[in-house]
């Protein structure tokens, strides 16, 4: 039975990651505003590289690391191995992130970029060690553990390859073209890290938040082997031969794995006891739709690439935008208000429950701000992505402005939760 206890040390680690990620999200929206024109060009552009790494590391990875310190012990049903390792990892990650993003932005591939990459690599290795030692304490192995640990390995490999690419700018380590490795680096990150980690964690959290009676993990097992199989096949095949007709087959295998996960979510949704779906969960379901759209662009990328048609670059940009700014962002925007209020609520009210009437976790954030945030984020999705595809600047500007508003509303709501004052409504 769950014996996970909230302690002040863990609370500080988790909250620090959430707040840092929220600031990175705001910085990301400002960076996007400053480089609107870059979205109409090639993705191998200094500002796009800086924005992508800010989105993937400062926003997506930062919040996943923070949430992991809280949720991995829950998912793995054991306590976190070491809080000190978590702090050291954060202390390495932040300067690494700043150095890397700044070096990309001004595009000086020298010592700062290299140091940034090494610091990030050390940070994620420490994170992986912490997760491994946490999981080791537990005897029973679950499919969620496989997802999470594989994701951590992929994160380390992604950053290791990224670091090698950074050194390749000045040392010419690889004989092949830089872009050849960029797609391996990107997919190890997007599929290996984000997809596996988010499936692993969400496959425990979604049934829990919906109070679903669906318990079988068979679909998740299929999903795991199909996605990991497709990823490994893609990495080897793409490294040796580049994109080819076989890439369609790999895509089909990966999509089959993703479909198993979607069916799992659908079964949880259908068998849920909690009929009312709140706004944070609605945001999470929106993220699944955006992931589906991102997936649908892949055959077009392959098709145009094989015909040497430059439209493949447009589809690659759209794919990356739907993955990072669509799927991952929507999921974070929603799940933050499922997880953070609980974390803060436990700190304020655990000792008072049963004695006094207290607010519920959902009362800790402003629902109106969350509604406004959801609307502005939807405006971003329906303007920015089409704007980038059509190369229509006014739409891109509207989208980026909507994203900035989303980031401000998100940050404000985070602070409302964090600065919540304990209150009771009389004795029980």
């Amino acid at each position, binding site marked *: *039975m769950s014996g996970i206890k909230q302690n002040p040390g863990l609370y500080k680690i988790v909250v620090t990651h959430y707040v840092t990620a929220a600031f990175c999200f705001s910085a990301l929206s400002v960076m996007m505003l400053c480089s609107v024109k870059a979205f109409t060009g090639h993705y191998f552009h200094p500002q796009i590289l800086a924005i992508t790494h800010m989105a993937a590391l400062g926003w997506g990875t930062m919040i996943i690391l923070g949430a992991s310190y809280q*949720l991995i012990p829950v*998912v793995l049903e054991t306590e976190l191995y070491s809080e000190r390792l978590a702090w050291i990892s954060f202390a390495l990650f932040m300067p690494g992130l700043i150095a890397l993003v700044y070096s990309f932005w001004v595009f000086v591939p020298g010592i700062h970029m290299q140091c940034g990459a090494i610091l990030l690599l050390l940070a994620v290795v420490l994170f992986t060690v912490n997760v491994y030692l946490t999981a080791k304490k537990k005897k029973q192995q679950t499919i969620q553990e496989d997802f999470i640990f594989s994701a951590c390995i992929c994160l380390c490999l992604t950053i290791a390859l990224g670091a090698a690419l950074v050194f390749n700018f000045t040392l010419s380590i690889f004989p092949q073209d830089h872009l050849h490795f960029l797609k391996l680096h990107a997919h190890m990150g997007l599929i290996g890290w984000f997809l596996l980690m988010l499936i692993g964690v969400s496959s425990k959290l979604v049934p829990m938040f919906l*109070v679903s009676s669906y318990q079988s993990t068979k679909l998740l097992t299929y999903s795991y082997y199909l996605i990991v199989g497709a990823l490994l096949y893609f990495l080897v095949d793409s490294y040796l031969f580049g994109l080819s007709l076989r890439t369609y087959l790999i895509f089909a295998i990966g999509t089959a794995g993703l479909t198993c996960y979607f069916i799992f979510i659908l079964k949880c949704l259908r068998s849920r*006891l909690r009929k009312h779906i709140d706004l944070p969960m609605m945001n999470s379901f929106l993220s699944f739709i955006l992931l589906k759209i991102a997936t649908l662009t892949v055959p077009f990328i392959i098709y145009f690439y094989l015909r040497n048609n430059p439209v493949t670059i447009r589809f690659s940009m759209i794919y990356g935008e739907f993955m990072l700014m669509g799927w991952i962002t929507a999921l974070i925007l929603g799940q933050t208000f499922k997880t953070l209020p*609980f974390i803060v609520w436990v700190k304020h009210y655990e*000792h008072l*429950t049963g004695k006094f009437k207290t607010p519920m976790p959902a009362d800790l954030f402003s629902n109106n701000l969350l509604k406004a945030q959801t609307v502005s984020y939807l405006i971003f999705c329906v303007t920015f992505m089409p704007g980038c595809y059509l190369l229509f600047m006014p739409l891109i500007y509207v989208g980026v402005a909507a994203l900035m508003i989303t980031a401000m509303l998100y940050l404000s709501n985070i602070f409302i939760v964090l600065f919540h004052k304990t209150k009771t409504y009389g004795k029980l």
Partner: protein
Amino acid sequence: MASFDITDPNSFFKEQIIETLRLVMDPELHINIIDLGLVYGIEIDSPKKQIQVQMTLSSSYCPMGESIVSAVKNCIEGHYEGYTTNIDLVLEPVWSYNNISDEGKRLLRI
């Protein structure tokens, strides 16, 4: 599931405790833990002034587990002065949909 036994001298007290525990809410579902069927049994040792609550959680990895357990303890000890409460958190039988009372189902709009 906690049930009423007329032959048990503590039956009325147990019923009273069950009613008291209706004040403890599941923070996510917003319904009380009795109608949710989380409480499996209550044992009272009157001479020693001890109350033993056997209960479960809606999922074994419930992050609010500690809060619900501490709420049950606080609630009983706050209402019945001098009594100490022990919580026996069990995995078996696993909590399921069938544990929810008719009132709970009505509240959940099932």
